[in-house]
């Protein structure tokens, strides 16, 4: 008993010794404290946002609002739900990712595995960087310019005067794919770069050429990196407002154009959760704040879900070479 207490005392003394005062200078300690405080307040802010949105959102969320189409009305009770915006978000997200993924993979493979001609590769890299940095409203305006050209007529509707409208799911989806593209390129490149050189060489050593090595060895190895990039891109698309406002128009409901199934929807205008929240928030005109809160909560859940998926994919898909 006595000896154990002695030991404890010794242990305590040793601990004390480690925490010698003066080991850290005052400015260091203030710095650490500030960093610590900043991290903590970020956590608090994130928690407050989530809890507030959950409280507001859940109190207005019900089956009706997610299954009914929106209606124009000055009275909040008669504004319906936001089924169409949910569909709009899903369409744009899937479309953007579907366009961005193959292009992004191709770009990343070319940059990482070939990289020639070198000046062109550097140019493309710079291009991707610029897209990352560009505010989406800039991309949106540019997209509008492109899709209002005469030859883009098949992708939106043409007004009586022959003017191409330039706003549709096609137009918005194409520009959204630009927003997702850097994520796919980045995810794929990172995955390819993490594959050791000797794995490629092992394939060459079996008498395989570069094309089969890329197809059969590198692509399976990079799969989770690609999925991670595409999912991050989808989260970005789901949360973007500027492109929707400029390029999708602001029709409350899906507004199909032309007679073909599916194509008519894509050719027409619509809305997404982001534009719906914007329109119906106190800042917009719809003046249905309760619906806006509920829609914002659904949007938040979608984005959080996508980010959780990213973590899950990244954890599951890791290939470890010795």
């Amino acid at each position, binding site marked *: 008993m006595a000896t154990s207490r002695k030991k404890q005392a010794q242990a305590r003394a040793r601990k004390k010794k480690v925490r010698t005062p003066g080991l850290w200078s005052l400015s260091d300690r203030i710095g650490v404290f500030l960093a610590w405080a900043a991290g903590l307040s970020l956590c608090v802010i994130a928690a407050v946002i989530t809890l507030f949105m959950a409280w507001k959102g859940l109190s207005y969320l019900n089956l009706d609002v997610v299954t009914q189409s929106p209606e124009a009305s000055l009275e909040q009770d008669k504004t319906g739900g936001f089924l169409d915006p949910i569909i709009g978000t899903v369409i744009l997200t899937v479309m953007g990712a579907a366009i961005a993924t193959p292009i992004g993979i191709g770009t990343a493979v070319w940059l990482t595995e070939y990289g020639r001609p070198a000046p062109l590769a550097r140019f493309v890299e710079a291009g991707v960087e610029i897209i990352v940095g560009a505010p989406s409203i800039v991309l949106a305006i540019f997209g509008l310019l492109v899709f209002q050209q005469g030859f883009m007529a098949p992708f939106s509707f043409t007004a009586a005067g022959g003017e191409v409208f330039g706003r549709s799911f096609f137009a918005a989806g194409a520009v959204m794919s630009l927003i997702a593209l850097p994520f796919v390129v980045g995810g794929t490149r990172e995955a390819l770069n993490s594959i050791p050189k000797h794995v490629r060489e092992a394939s060459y*050593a*079996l*008498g395989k050429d570069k094309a089969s090595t890329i197809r059969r060895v590198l692509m399976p*190895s990079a799969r989770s990196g690609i999925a991670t990039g595409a999912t991050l891109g989808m989260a970005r698309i789901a949360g973007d407002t500027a492109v929707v406002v400029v390029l999708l128009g602001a029709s409350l409901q899906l507004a199909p154009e032309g007679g073909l199934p599916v194509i008519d929807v894509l050719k027409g205008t619509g809305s997404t959760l982001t534009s719906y929240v914007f329109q119906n928030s106190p800042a917009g005109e719809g003046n249905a704040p309760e619906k806006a809160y509920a829609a914002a909560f659904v949007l938040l859940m979608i984005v959080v879900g996508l980010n959780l998926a990213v973590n899950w994919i990244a954890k599951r898909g890791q290939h470890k070479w010795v």
Partner: protein
Amino acid sequence: MGVIDEEKASDNGYVPPLRQIQVGGTTEPISVAERIQEPDPLLQQEEVPYFDDTQPEWFEQIMRTESLSISFGDKKAVKEVSLPVNAGEVLALIGPSGCGKTTLLRSLNKLVDLTPTAKREGRILLDGTDTDLYDDTYLRRRVGMLFQQPNPFPMSIFDNIAYGLRERGSKRPRKKELEPLVVDSLKRAGLWSEVKDILNQPALALSGGQQQRLCIARSLAVMPEVLLLDEPCSALDPISTSIIEETIVELKDEIAIVIVTHNLQQAERVADRVAFMYLGDLVEYGVAEQVFNAPQAERTKDYVRGDFG
């Protein structure tokens, strides 16, 4: 290998001629200085000077390099190396790190050519034919390679082995057709009993030693005539190492093996012949026992003694 008949061996310092049957264990270690003074052994086509009934194995030269030099930019990594590789034997490349062992090995299946800065002079012959006449992919099917790090592909065990057998294009052989070859390769690599029930599981879930044997099986599946090993055990534990060494010794009857190792004990355990390199030069080449026990060149003596204490 039997004991060397030193008296007889010492008076016929010859370089094995190309495409000529030759008896194992008779080549004495020759320093490069001596070799260069000799007339070109290829032109000479001298008769096999020595025959020993106690060593009844016949060795055929499957590969050789002729005055092979490789440089990376200004740096010469391999200098004027002429080295034969015999079928049915294990040839060990030894020498201090950075002396060009890996570079020499990787030149044999032209992996060096993938390095943009690498420049090659001299010839590499496979079965008497200049390898420059072959397509790289064809050469690499005949000369397989195993790497320092086990590197299975991120696919199932079966698919790893089958990968080399599957051709591009529409005519992909079906699993059933590939199965006998896959099984055979795994058996030859000594891995079959451990994986026969888990062929469809990911190869990267295997242990390091198993992964390396899987890589051996993967190489064997394409039926190479030469197998190049670059320090294949340096990432493995002692038990896996000895299993791989056993596999190497078993395989040498069917396939010529060139192994780079910085572990002299390992070279002694597995090698029939040894080539000692120093700063890009081939300093000494000969029968393993002789290089280890009676090295001719001073550098070899220093290196071998230094390592054996």
